[in-house]
């Protein structure tokens, strides 16, 4: 199991696509300052599927917001292709835990919001939006409003909205956290398929061990608050991965490693 240290990649010829250096985040709260992130460094190659796995409150969502340029860290830097990020990045697609759809727009209209923001040519963008919706099983639902769709369908619309402009990077903040187990499995498979076709860089925030192992090239496991990098685990399972693979000893060994880490840190307790 490859343990990759972010410092190794520095200065090498193949510069990482995304690089976060020494990120710390301190919030002011009623009980004084709270340290959400502590000296977190990570990097991702172009086209890599990188998961950040950790318990609730370890600051992993904050990490994504910083990486997206939507929040400023208290200290540390974010860079893309060596360029420092100082403003919200518009070249990415974001999927939040909730679908964040506009209730007054149809499924298609919600996907097209991204196209309007990017001023994409309308007919071409609309064709693309319809193709995307169809590719995640939403053909025939283009003109439905969010309240007419199930939770899983809404999250699929949200995913299409994040993809319509062919982003270099997809950032997902526990995107399947609010869904039932079966819908989750389907969306994980859908996401793998999408990533296989496009190979964009993915930063995937999750607290689900099987989800992270199933999808990732590498998993960065975080400690409980304040969030630090605990261990980076390379997942060397063949792709495309299948549901049956979750029952294999290799898959189990990865899960075991992560669970042992959680047990050692007190995130989980076996009584």
């Amino acid at each position: 199991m490859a343990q990759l240290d972010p410092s190794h990649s520095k200065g090498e010829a193949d510069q990482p696509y995304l690089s976060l250096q020494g990120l710390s985040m301190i919030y002011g709260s009623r009980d004084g300052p709270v340290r959400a992130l502590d000296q977190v460094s990570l990097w991702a190659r172009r086209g890599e599927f990188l998961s950040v796995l950790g318990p609730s409150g370890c600051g992993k969502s904050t990490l994504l917001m910083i990486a997206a340029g939507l929040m400023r860290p208290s200290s540390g830097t974010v860079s893309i292709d060596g360029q420092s990020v100082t403003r919200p990045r518009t070249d990415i697609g974001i999927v939040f835990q909730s679908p964040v759809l506009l209730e007054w727009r149809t499924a298609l209209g919600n996907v097209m919001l991204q196209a309007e923001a990017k001023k994409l040519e309308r007919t071409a963008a609309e064709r693309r939006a319809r193709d995307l919706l169809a590719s995640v099983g939403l053909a025939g639902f283009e003109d439905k409003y969010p309240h007419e769709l199930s939770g899983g369908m809404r999250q699929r619309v949200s995913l299409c909205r994040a993809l319509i402009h062919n982003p270099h990077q997809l950032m997902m903040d526990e995107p399947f956290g609010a869904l039932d187990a079966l819908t989750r499995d389907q969306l994980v498979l859908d996401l793998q398929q999408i990533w296989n076709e496009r190979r964009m860089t993915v930063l995937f925030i999750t607290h689900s061990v099987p989800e992270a192992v199933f999808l990732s090239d590498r998993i960065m496991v975080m400690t409980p608050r304040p969030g630090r990098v605990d261990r980076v685990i390379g997942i060397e399972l063949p792709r495309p991965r299948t549901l049956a693979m979750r029952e294999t000893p290799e898959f189990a060994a990865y899960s075991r490693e992560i669970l042992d880490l959680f047990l050692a840190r007190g995130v989980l307790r076996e009584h």
Partner: protein
Amino acid sequence: MERSRAQREWRTRVSGVIYPIGVVLGVLVVWEAVTRIFGVPAFLLPPPSAIGASFVANSHLLLSNGWITTVEILLGFALSIVVGIPLALAIFLWPVFSRSILPLLVSSQAMPKVAVAPLLLVWFGFGLLPKVLIAFLIAFFPIVINTAVGLASIEPEKIYLARSMGFGATATFFKIRLPNALPAIFGGLKISITLAVVGAVVGEFVGGDAGLGYLLMVANGSMDTALLFAGIVALTVLGVVLYLLVELAERLAIPRHIISGDKGARETF
């Protein structure tokens, strides 16, 4: 099965109309019977039939005065929108403005605006203007508060999303924040239109020479209780029609959103 469900829905909808009408008719019949059987004097409580007769006999009077009141209400309501929405925008956009104006605005609402009516009469005479101003004073506050609250209350993720998509401040406002606030704004408009009716009538009470409020005072003075009731019915109808017009505008502005809300409400009851 689909069919029986549709039938059931239709039946619920019909009973939603039939039952209240039935109750009203029942009350009218009892009312008519009681006044006749016990010989209640007409100046105390006229029977519904006498009120109906008065309504028909005075229909011209009710219409012409009703029109004047309608104009006062609509002008007051329009003024409430024209002043209220920009005020709410300013409160939302400039925190300093909000901090300095909002407390004054809220405490001004504790003042009974009816008490200001005589003052407005002194300043603006007996014409249309003081009635419009009283209607405005009573009606504009809900628009300001609802619009300001509607604009401010939005999931933070929607704003994050807009920023990550690359929308500027203006586009974010018009594409996301304003439509998001529309249900709240229309909530304010619906309260406001009913208050504008109150305001116009109060203005006519205090110093009117025309309008339904004035007609009520005249009927009262001449002990014409049947006409008094007819005036109240006319005012009620006017209020309901104006409210429904605002609701219609709401449905045109945000069809899906509201229809879904209605459905949810109907299912819970």
